[in-house]
């Protein structure tokens, strides 16, 4: 299994969650909300590009709309490979924390 980097993991998660509406603007919002800090577009494009090269997401162009200056949106969609990778990530996290007692403040 090839590991995803943390930004890739977050972005992949966002694409999966946002379903039909997964393009850069909401992805950025989602990731920023999740992590509690502002992400630049650049920080989104790079992992997105990587994910696409790895075949975990695929993209297509939507109809152009005026609020984007007449430009299309590039909508991302998670592939079966992507879903598998996401599941593996989850599994990894679960097994990593399984049996570890709750962190207490003391």
């Amino acid at each position: 299994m090839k590991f995803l980097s943390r930004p890739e993991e977050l972005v992949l998660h966002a694409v999966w969650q946002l379903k039909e509406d997964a393009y850069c603007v909401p992805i950025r919002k989602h990731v920023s909300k999740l992590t509690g800090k502002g992400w630049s577009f650049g920080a989104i494009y790079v992992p997105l590009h990587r994910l696409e090269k790895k075949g975990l997401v695929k993209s297509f162009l939507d109809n152009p709309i005026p609020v984007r200056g007449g430009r299309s949106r590039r909508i991302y969609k998670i592939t079966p490979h992507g879903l598998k990778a996401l599941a593996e990530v989850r599994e990894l996290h679960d097994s990593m924390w399984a049996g570890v007692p709750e962190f207490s403040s003391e």
Partner: protein
Amino acid sequence: MADKIRLPKFLVWLLLRILPEYVDDTALGDFEEEYNHIAADRGRAFANFWLSLNIIKSIPPFIADAIRFRLVMLKNYATITWRNMKRHKTYSFINIAGLAVGLACCLLITLWVLDERSYDRFHENYDRLYRVVVNQPSSGEMRKIVATPPPLGPALKNDFPEIVETTRLSYWGSVPLRAGDKSFNESHMVIVEPSFFSLFTFPFVKGEGAASLSTPNSALISERRAESLFGNEDPIGKVIQVDNRFDYIITGVFRDIPNNTHIRQFDLVLSWSHLDQMEWYESDSWGAFSYRTYVLLGEKASFQDVNQKITKLIQHYSSGSKVEILLEPISDIHLRSHYRLSTGLRGIVYVYIFSAIALFVLLIACVNFMNLTTARSFNRAREIGMRKTIGALRRHVIVQFFGESCFMTLYALGLALALIGLVLPEFNKFTGKQLNFYSICNWQAVIGLMGITLLTGFVAGSYPALYLSSFRPVHVLRKVVQIGKKKSVFRRALVILQFSMSVILIIGTLVVYAQLDYIRNRRIGWERENLISISLSREMRKSFDILKAELLKHPRILGLTATYSEPTNFESSSWGVNWEGKDAEEVVHVTLNLVDYDFLDTLNIEMAEGRSFSKEFSTDATQAFLINETLARMMETESPVGAKFSFIGREGQIIGVMKDFHFHSLRTGIGPLAIALGSDDYWNFALVRIHQENVSSTLEDLNILWKKIFPYSPFTFSFMEEDYERQYRSETRMGKLINVFAGLAVFIACLGLLGLTSFAVEQRRKEIGIRKVLGASAGNILWILGREFVLWVLVANVIGWPIAYFAMSNWLRNFAYRIGVGPEIFVFSSVLTLAVAIVAVAFQSRRAATSNPADSLRYE
């Protein structure tokens, strides 16, 4: 969404610059959408701010990604290069070994050149420091000297406001030194003014430093002298006795004088007031040219202006003098000065020669690389064709090959660094330098190293990259074109270039070697073998007669005499000479030496006319002169013997003419010389001729005798022959170095030839097979394979000859006594290169010529 706002034009432009290629037009859309949201919520100004910030924040991820991406590419190139290297071991070895040796040479020479150029640049004020030099008119020419009279320094400081500070320096020969129970001859002593240490940056490790020099009887010593005299004890406050009569207290210890300064190593410093205790010292004599003077100019002073103002200063103070003085920048002294005791080649010439060699060697290595890579292009043509068919553009192939050559160079660099580490100690011994491998471990050096490597990789890879990338896949894959055969004109030119450079280097080496050999074996007019020189102190001079009588009793001591200066270098000279019938206007500068009676016999100097000094003539001691043939010719009389002659205040007549002999280094010619008898006050050296057998036991006996006569002074001596050789040490060193590097260059060129031949043989295997089937002999095959290379080497010789001839004649012009560049050197270099080429070719072709044709033809 009626109030839709477009993005500011400038920011769009900026975005387009930074967005990587894989982010398409939709990205601008993303930015614009978010921009509109924010502008609607919080106003346009904030949106602009947000957008700018977001653009800036987007840059680092893009850069990081780009670097990561390139690294992946680099890794791929490295893998491919590595696989290629492993598949063709001989070829890779030749390529990399050649490059590594080339790089190592180049780097070593760079280290050397950097060290040469660092001389005297460590002084804090080096750009304002100058040495006073003197032009002394003498028999029609200018003598260029660096010795100045004592009142010059103070006068310069008084008369010219531009000169902030001056200092004087006096070097001393060997002086007896005693500290506690240790006694020896200190040969590294200087006398300076306190300002010396404020002009020059020689740091102190202990004590009060320079200030203490102004108090009388204080001395400074170097760290290593402190160690050798006092071990671990604190040297401050210790008393030393100089010249067996002056007591000095050590008040400071300075760090050992580094190598890269023109100032000779010194370990003991006395203050200027020491000179006042000398009977012969005249502090206001404008005629005693014996001291170095240095000046520090003010920050705003112009060197040229000051130079013009001071030119006539000595003439102003000392009427009748025609001497001119000038300033010389201190950083020029080591490499560029014309004012030196020795008149050999200026250092800068060697810097140029070696830089040229470094460039040559590296170029030859690069040419090898180009040659071998293009020659082998045949093997890789299909790979390139394949790449192009799958979609590689020409520029991808170009980048790949540049990458490959850069990687090869990097491998070579690693090897070169290891090589340097290995040979650096030897190199240091060779050059007398203290170069350090770690001196190249700073960031400038690393950048420089990378620069050289990349440049080498670039140059070496340029032709293969451009040539190989031009293949048309359809031709290559269908084998329409025999790649590597058609375009060999360029390769031929490269081999010829390579061998021309080798020829130039070989001829240069031979000429340098022959010239040095000529100098070393030239008849100099006196016998330097089995002659030892003992430096005499004041006390020894007084007992010289006893010494002479005692030593001459020894059966293996054949002769003994005393002299003012050693025959390798007669130091003193003057123009205060006059003879019967001399043109009063004519200025003649004559060298003078004062000697003991049997000087000529001990040195085996032959007489041309007249007689030598003799005790039978009582007037000889005060009135007799011997002159050399050169001076006799200048006198233009029928026979100079018996002519009236006056010199240095001594009136007398010439009693004989000596045959010309060399009393300076051979770089200069033989000048006019007069010698006269001196009293023991003048005898600085005793010269002893010993029997050639049992030299070591003779020396032991000498030591015992010496201890009997002078129990407090150590017996120190030197062989005249070694002193003589030492005069040519820099030439000998340089000669050896040039030999080594030229040898390496030829070696690398041969490696290249070896590679090329093996390639040619491989390519023509079938042809050779067919020829053999049809009845060609092994000799025929050798000739067919070799004739082309032989022709190339011949052409290279013809190109190299005139260049080498021109360069070497120029170099030889620096010597007063020199060899001619004869045809035999050219013939020899041709024969040598041809022989080497033939051996390389024959070595490779032999297998092809003797192989069974069935092996190479059975697949047809």
